């Protein structure tokens, strides 16, 4: 949940990148980390297996600047995508303010996208959240690969509520900040309402 500290004049929000295994969640964070000035971000923590698969989560704090005199800091998390790490995924969703679903555009990964999206909805429900009411963006990643599903078909299958859909190639940074911006804007808009 958003945490507002008057004494230090800070707003802290939590954004979680969700999606099937190897869809590029960690690559999104890595790109943000690599292309942000060191004074605007903290360390990137990756709890990964020896083969660099996310085991528990990746984490990086990112400071975007001031809003009405308050420092705005986003805590970015990824979940482990592999199916059997479901218990970890649930834990990471606790206190979430916004979600990015990273979908893999390759034809053979469409089933994995659908399964992961259902899993997201279910895990959010188990933590008392409703995807339909949460700040949310859909990223169609790996648009540079051959044999990909068209964006229109992917949106038809995966879009839930008219959320922003961003085409991306996370490895080169295409669409990475647009995605973050799309969800961060919604989080701040929610803050305005509250």
């Amino acid at each position: 949940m958003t945490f507002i500290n008057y004494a230090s004049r800070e707003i802290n929000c939590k954004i979680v990148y969700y999606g099937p295994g190897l869809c590029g969640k960690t690559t999104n964070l890595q790109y943000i980390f690599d292309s942000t000035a060191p004074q605007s971000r903290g360390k990137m923590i990756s709890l990964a297996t020896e083969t660099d698969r996310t085991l528990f989560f990746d984490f990086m704090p990112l400071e975007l600047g001031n809003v009405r005199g308050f420092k705005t800091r986003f805590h970015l998390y990824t979940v482990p995508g592999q199916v059997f790490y479901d218990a970890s995924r649930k834990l990471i969703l606790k206190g979430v303010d916004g979600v990015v679903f990273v979908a893999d555009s390759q034809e053979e990964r469409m089933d994995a996208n659908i399964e992961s999206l259902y899993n997201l909805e279910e895990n959010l429900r188990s933590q008392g959240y409703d995807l339909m009411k949460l700040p949310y963006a859909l990223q169609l990643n790996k648009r540079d690969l051959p044999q990909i599903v068209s964006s229109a078909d992917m949106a038809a299958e995966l879009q839930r509520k008219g959320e922003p859909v961003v085409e991306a190639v996370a490895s080169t940074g295409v669409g990475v900040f647009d995605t973050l911006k799309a969800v961060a804007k919604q989080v701040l808009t929610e803050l305005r309402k509250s």
Partner: protein
Amino acid sequence: MADSPIVMREQEYHQIKAVLARLRLDASARVVFLVDKDGQQIATHGDVAGLDTTSLASLAAGNVAATGGMAELIGEKEFPTLSHEGEHESIHISVVGRLLLVVVFDEHSSLGLVKLRSKQVSQQLASIFAEVARSSEDGQTNEDLPFGEITDEDIESLFS
């Protein structure tokens, strides 16, 4: 929708800082900090130079969440304290309601002392934070928050 924001006022922040300062002294600890279960750092006190407290807060919350998950699997509600003892530096974490009290200490202290002192201040921290949560929930603290006036331009400027 996301949970309502938690808003901490200066007064409560300074009360918490005072409790942490006393705990640090009484427990002969290096650093003491308070984190919420979602990994947000609330307040710190002590020798934080060179210490990445934001990452530590996030990992402490992940640690407690993971062991809490294990507790449930074996039929326990939670494990209320966690300790990690290193060669020189150690960490003690206690769960205080929705908060985690994290104490980093070295050879100048002992696990027994840290546990005892942490327990002694838990109730006090819990009641201060209960007040923070209560006033955040009923909107008492939100009346003069400037966020209602956030414009689309303000948001846009963060990304320019």
